[in-house]
């Protein structure tokens, strides 16, 4: 207890003394900005340059410090920070020949208070990061990351890695503008990216590249739109014919593959939210089970009349429950064209027998699917059409996922529902004509003023629909624009809303895009009006 108090006191002291000397939290354009993305909630820095030992030692403390998630992340980040040849290994050898090289930073201390590794919506991602020169009087280690959970520690490590820069003259890794004191936490608990493996199959390796890149921008939910009308790539043991709807034998995920993706994501503090989009986007289901189609010539939406349809949904959800531990499950429910129901004799008769309009049947379908999800201990997420069509019947636990109408979150939270913001005009990444600044300036809480309502907006999501995005272009369509949304969702509203973003954000985004490139992520140039276009001519990464 007492060392903790002491630490806190010291921190406070440091913070105050520093914030007097250097004016902080939002950098004035005159200063060169701190090249951090997304911008931390609170930070202060000084004017020293510190060198980092390539053999920097990891020291862990707290109940969660010993977690393998922390250890693995440390190793990952060391690989990224010391990626130049004269970095980690060879310098060590060099030291033996030259005199002992004194580094300012020789250890990295990670304190994690909670021993729980459970990753759920709203998990504490806050952290503090301190970087200061080691000196005799200081009981504080050179670099300390303190967090309540391992996932907070991961965010802190990412920030730390962004402070480190390879200096080409000394050929060592340096931290500029030390000492640093950063206290950070996300503004929204849900910061998502959608990928679509139905329109184009994405190989496992590519999904992992996407997940890894998300962690660099502190995004924390991978919304996996697994299935749609075009293909059904996932194995579902309960209904083994479903993945016959895959494009080919090679374009499939086994249950183990999906579990591996979830594990890989969890190691990076990212939840995976699966989606089965019913009843409208499900034609491919019928390749394995044609009974799910209203008829052979009219195949969508799923046949609402049959218990078999709901048995299959229940089977899929039961199989998926074993793979996906996240509490949210996306049931789709968008763009349901019910003509096939009207035009298929047996469905029409069923509607008449129940005195249902097609809209009633749509409602019936969605609500029944919701109950199946809830029975499997899932919280349903549905696209906004379900809310706009029959909002008052939705289960009160439903999270409404906006995409179509700009004020739908406003309406949904007024009715007490939670909401995820994905306004297609700005946050659909497949819309190539939305430049980064429009993505950046889109505010999920726009028009929502009551605090109690604001709290119901759990976050937002950028959507990488897959019609024209396959392995060859998916990453450069996502980045760097997804990063613009990521800062909007992570940083404080004040920090991202005031000032001239050409000065406060653009230089940092240039820098972050080059950081992605340096880490092997093919993020496209920032300055192009259209997304994923090649650079307009020769030039520096930082100027494009």
């Amino acid at each position: 207890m007492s060392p903790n108090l002491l630490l806190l006191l010291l921190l406070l002291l440091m913070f105050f003394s520093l914030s007097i000397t250097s004016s902080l939290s939002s950098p004035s354009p005159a200063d060169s900005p701190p090249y951090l993305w997304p911008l931390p909630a609170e930070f202060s820095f000084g004017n020293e340059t510190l060198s980092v030992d390539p053999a920097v030692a990891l020291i862990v403390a707290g109940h969660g410090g010993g977690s393998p998630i922390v250890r693995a992340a440390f190793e990952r980040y060391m690989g990224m920070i010391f990626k130049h040849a004269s970095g980690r290994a060879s310098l060590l050898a060099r030291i033996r020949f030259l005199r002992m090289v004194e580094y300012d930073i020789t250890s990295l201390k990670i304190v994690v208070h909670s021993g729980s590794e459970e990753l759920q919506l709203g998990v504490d991602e806050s952290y503090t990061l301190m970087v200061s020169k080691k000196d005799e009087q200081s009981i504080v280690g050179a670099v300390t990351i303190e967090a309540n959970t391992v996932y907070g520690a991961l965010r802190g490590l990412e920030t730390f890695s962004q402070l480190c820069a390879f200096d080409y003259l000394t050929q060592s890794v340096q931290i500029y503008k030390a000492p640093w004191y950063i206290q950070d936490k996300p503004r929204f608990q849900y910061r998502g990216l959608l990928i679509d493996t139905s329109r184009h199959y994405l190989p496992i390796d590519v999904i992992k590249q996407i997940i890894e890149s998300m962690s660099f921008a502190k995004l924390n939910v991978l919304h996996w739109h697994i299935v749609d009308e075009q293909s059904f790539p996932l194995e579902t043991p309960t209904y083994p014919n479903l993945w016959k709807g895959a494009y080919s034998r090679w374009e499939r995920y086994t249950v183990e593959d999906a579990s591996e993706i979830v594990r890989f994501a969890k190691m990076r503090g990212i939840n995976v939210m699966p989606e089965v989009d019913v009843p409208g986007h499900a034609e491919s289901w019928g390749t394995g089970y044609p009974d799910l189609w209203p008829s052979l010539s009219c195949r969508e939406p799923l046949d609402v009349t049959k218990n078999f349809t709901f048995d299959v949904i229940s089977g899929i959800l039961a199989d998926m429950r074993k793979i996906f531990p996240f509490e949210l499950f996306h049931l789709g429910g968008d763009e349901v064209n019910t003509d096939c129901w009207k035009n298929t004799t047996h469905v029409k008769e069923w509607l008449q027998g129940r005195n249902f309009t097609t809209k009633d049947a749509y409602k019936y379908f969605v609500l029944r699917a919701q109950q199946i999800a809830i029975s499997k201990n899932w919280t349903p997420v549905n696209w906004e059409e379900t809310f706009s069509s029959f909002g008052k019947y939705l289960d009160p636990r439903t999270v409404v996922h906006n995409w179509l109408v700009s004020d739908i979150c406003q309406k949904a939270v007024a009715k007490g529902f939670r909401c995820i913001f994905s306004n297609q005009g700005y946050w659909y990444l497949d819309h190539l004509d939305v430049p980064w600044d429009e993505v950046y300036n889109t505010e999920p809480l726009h028009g929502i003023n009551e605090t109690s309502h604001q709290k119901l907006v759990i976050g937002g999501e950028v959507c990488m629909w897959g019609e024209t995005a396959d392995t060859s272009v998916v990453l450069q369509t996502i980045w760097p624009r997804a990063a613009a949304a990521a800062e909007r969702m992570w940083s404080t509203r004040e920090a991202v809303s005031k000032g001239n973003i050409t000065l406060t954000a653009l230089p940092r985004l240039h820098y972050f895009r080059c950081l992605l490139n340096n880490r092997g992520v093919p993020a496209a140039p920032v300055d192009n009006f259209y997304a994923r276009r090649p650079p307009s001519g020769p030039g520096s990464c930082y100027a494009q």
Partner: protein
Amino acid sequence: MIFITHKHCTKPPIQRLCLTCIYKERDFYDSLLFFATFFFPPLIFIFTIFRFTKREKMRGRGAKIAGVLPFFTLFMAGAISAFEDIERLRIWPLPAEVSHGGRRMYLSGDFKLVTEGSKYEDTTEILKEGFDRMLDVVRLSHVVSGGRNSSRSGGSALLQGLHVIISSSTDELEYGADESYKLVVPSPEKPSYAHLETKSVYGALHGLQTLSQLCHFNVKKKIIEILMTPWNITDQPRFSYRGLLIDTSRHYLPLPVIKNVIDSMTYAKLNVLHWHIVDTQSFPLEIPSYPKLWNGAYSSSQRYTFDDAAEIVKYAERRGIHVLAEIDVPGHALSWGKGYPSLWPSKNCQEPLDVSSNFTFKVIDGILSDFSKIFKFKFVHLGGDEVNTTCWSATPRIAQWLKKHQMSEEEAYQYFVLRAQKIALSHGYEIINWEETFNNFGSKLNPKTVVHNWLGTGVVERVTASGLRCIVSNQDKWYLDHIDAPWQGFYDNEPLQAIKDKKQQSLVLGGEVCMWGEHIDASDIEQTIWPRAAAAAERLWTPYAKLATNPDKVTTRLAHFRCLLNQRGVAAAPLVGGGRVVPLEPGSCLAQ
């Protein structure tokens, strides 16, 4: 069934359709067809028609298929031709000689590398690492299970490992050395080990690449299988120089990006990375002898240390890839003067390098001396293209020097190139120069010069007729930055076109596809290179007689290779269209 689509699909739009239906195979038909292929050809025919008709009807195109039925019948009257059989193999580039059977084998969960009887000791673990990489790409990040359980995966059909026998003990990567290999995968009656025999470890790496393409992840059994065993493959490259140029001056390419490019080259058996390091725009590499040169980098962080370059060379060499370093003098060197302004004719006329100053050649000497410590390839590229000499005459100091030495601008250009050649030779290098040097003063070039074609046609004939060696990169077909150039042109481009004389043919070392960097950075390099570079790679590897005369015949196999690259995390673009096209609509990777 594949060959039917080939005949059927002559026009691109229909072809796409066909690919879709072929790859939308259902497993039941798959297995039937598989056995039928080898035991009862008429049966395939019936099943194929049945399947085809069924799918087409689903799409409401029954009438169309009925129309072409007589055509199928005619075609089926002939036996399966050798060509179509090869196209079914899904190996890229196609090996020199292949035979196979029709049985299925599985890889054991602990598939081992055995090297008993090999003269090569692998102390540097080039082979072992290559073997591990092979297993990685075969697994394609899938979770592989069940392989250990031999009863579940078919008992006797289980392959325990790969036995590699290498007869040369050296691991020196030597240009022109034997890259051949012989790969045997047994049938289930004689199981246990696959065999790979080679002269050098680098031939073994090629064999491992081929083996990786024979392996498939079986999504149902969740193990790795090899179909159509037994396999007997004897293979060697047609050309010893199979290159890809990257350009780190127009845009800096981060280290992981270069490494990814190198890895992807190995999949297509390319063996020379031509590193166009420096140009007008930036000078990213550290040169210890002249430490201000990299002041010409775009920024302090868009640089390669000397150790970085050594690491790239090592990384490439361990994969059997030579790194050809280029400094493009005197025409493409403006960025040198950022650190040493005296290399410019003058402040306002900065290119080409000052021909009149000894310092210029001292710097070249320093660079090449430093190069010789890390770039171990026997060649160095000295550029020499696109030299606009007006700055020389326009600068009084140089104009006087020209006058004093009674040199025209053209003669000064020749003087510069030849003097640079001598410096390179003094550091033990043989020289490669762009073709303008040959076009302007070919008879004066050092006989060790390799002329690098890019501009015109007819150059290769003239160069080889004069007794010099040549590398082919004609820009109309093999420049990857020409994004309107389709893969068919890359496939079709024959380096020995119109060269009949055997002696002259032997002077063509090979070819190179060029990824110039004006519009290429870390975000789009892979999809601009692939899959078109692969089309050229087959041209450079596979025996002439086995190459398709009509590139469209190899579409299916190339589409498969493109998807293989995707599965391995390489962002290879769709085939339909020119370079770096994006998919136009949803669909299978194999159909786009």
